[in-house]
């Protein structure tokens, strides 16, 4: 378990992380979301022992990061923001270096390198210098060095940034497969990623936690949650008015000529009523679906300061 209590970080007068507390249990994949400069990376840097907090405590599986950093760092695999690596080394030698620094040698080191190389598919570039690698390979090398010692805790700062859609998919698969009994903390500003890999989402802005809950709970906060999008070939007379008058319908928005978005009251399901109304107005339905919620909507709502502290 990672336990963070009253953690703050100041850079001179600037408060990057403002008195946050949370716990993460094994098996959880926690996604840090937030606009740039929200304090995600700073929090991760403190979790990994790179920066020392201005105030507060971090305990990593029982090891205090301030007093027992080495023991805590042995348990953590970390991909720093931008996946830095020694550009003048080859992929093979840089993995050897990380492995040796983590105390492996001989056959075990070779076996571990072979394992991670297969896992993140680096075999084609093993002998290449890192400065000649593409961004995708560098990111995967960063992942490889993070998982080389099979850590119980994995902290990944924007692991899919700069990857193409196939590589993104691959990295997400990797995270999902790793996650069984580990603690995984991922930061991202790609919202789809949260629903794709995370079991828990945390929105940070101005160094504070604005939301902490499951991705579904996050989506449920959207105005679009359970909203119905309806497209017909030709909108019948009076349909829009009838739907607008249904109970639990807050408003109907007409997007294009023949497309309606129907918003329900918070938490209400209006599909049945809408369906009945539709049958009373004969028309050709081309599209009808219930929205799960738009994350970018919630994200904007929460992070532009309109929302109060609303931890779920």
């Amino acid at each position, binding site marked *: 378990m990672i336990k963070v209590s009253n953690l703050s970080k100041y*850079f001179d007068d600037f408060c990057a992380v403002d008195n946050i507390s949370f716990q993460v249990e094994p098996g959880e994949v926690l996604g840090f979301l937030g606009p740039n400069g929200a304090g995600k990376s700073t929090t991760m*840097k403190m979790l*990994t*022992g*790179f*920066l*020392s907090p201005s105030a507060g405590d971090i305990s990593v599986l029982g090891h205090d990061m301030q007093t027992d950093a*080495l*023991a805590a*760092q*042995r348990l*953590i695999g*970390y991909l*720093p*923001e*931008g996946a*830095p*690596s*020694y*550009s*003048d*080394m080859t992929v093979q*030698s840089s993995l050897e*270096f*990380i492995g*040796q*620094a*983590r*105390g492996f040698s001989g056959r075990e080191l070779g076996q571990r390198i072979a394992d991670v190389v297969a896992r993140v598919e680096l075999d084609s570039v093993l002998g290449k*210098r890192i400065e000649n690698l593409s961004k995708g390979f560098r990111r995967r090398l960063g992942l490889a*060095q993070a998982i080389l010692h099979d850590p119980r805790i994995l902290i990944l700062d924007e692991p899919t940034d700069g990857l193409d859609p196939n590589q993104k998919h691959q990295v997400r698969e990797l995270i999902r497969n790793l996650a069984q009994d580990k603690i995984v903390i991922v930061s991202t500003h790609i919202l789809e990623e949260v629903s794709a890999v995370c079991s828990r989402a945390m929105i940070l802005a101005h160094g504070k936690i604005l939301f902490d809950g499951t991705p579904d709970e996050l989506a449920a906060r959207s105005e679009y949650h359970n909203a119905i999008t309806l497209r017909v070939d030709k909108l019948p007379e009076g349909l829009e008015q009838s739907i607008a008058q249904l109970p639990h319908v807050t408003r109907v928005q007409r997007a294009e000529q023949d497309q309606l978005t129907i918003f329900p009251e918070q938490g209400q399901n209006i599909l049945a009523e809408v369906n009945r109304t539709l049958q009373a107005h004969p028309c050709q339905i081309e599209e009808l679906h219930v929205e799960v919620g738009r994350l970018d909507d919630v994200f904007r709502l929460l992070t532009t300061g309109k929302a109060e502290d609303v931890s779920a």
Partner: protein
Amino acid sequence: MNAVNVILKRELASYFATPVAYIFIIIFLMLAGVFTFYLGQFFERGQADLSAFFGFIPWLFIVLVPAVAMRLWSEERRSGTIELLMTLPITTFQVVIGKFLAAWFFVGLALALTFPLWVTVNYLGEPDNGVILAGYLGSWFMSGGFLAIGSCLSATTKNQIVAFILTLVVCFVLVVAGFPIVQDVFSGWAPLWLVDGVSNISFLAHFNAISRGVIDLRDLVYFSVLIAAFLYATALVIDMKKAD
């Protein structure tokens, strides 16, 4: 100790991963040759010793050693690999020492490659090889002092050029502190202990003593303390400044 070793190996390998190391060694050897034979008038002096070589070593080091030291930390900070390094289960001191030793061994290798000078002087006459060995030892210790200062200054900046210039200036001041030109500035008015103090911090005073073949424990202690102090300062600077 294993961790220091791992860092040391990586650093040494990275010197030779690019042409920089080879260029450095070649320039060092060429300049050493030029200084010894032309400026030092090795042949004209008609003496079987290497004092012509060791007399120029401090000046050679002022320019070349900061060039080795400048990348020690600046490059890590600029490329962000410092974050990778400092989140491994290794202490700051282990990294500082590993990096310093790699640079020190590298300069040691460059020094060792001046062995043709030693061969030459032994071919031409019968030098006191003990004095020559002391000269090499003194040179190596002095380069350690330069490197420790360079390591500390390199930790303060992301810019290698800034690190180079800062180190060069500090090393220059430390070398010339024992010269009459600096001594004269103080001797007119300052109390004797200050004049002595200034001349005592000079690299040159301690180096010259060793390179004359007088291995006084105090001179070795001087360089050792200097190295230890600046490596300690390096670790402090790293912990303070690694965030920016």
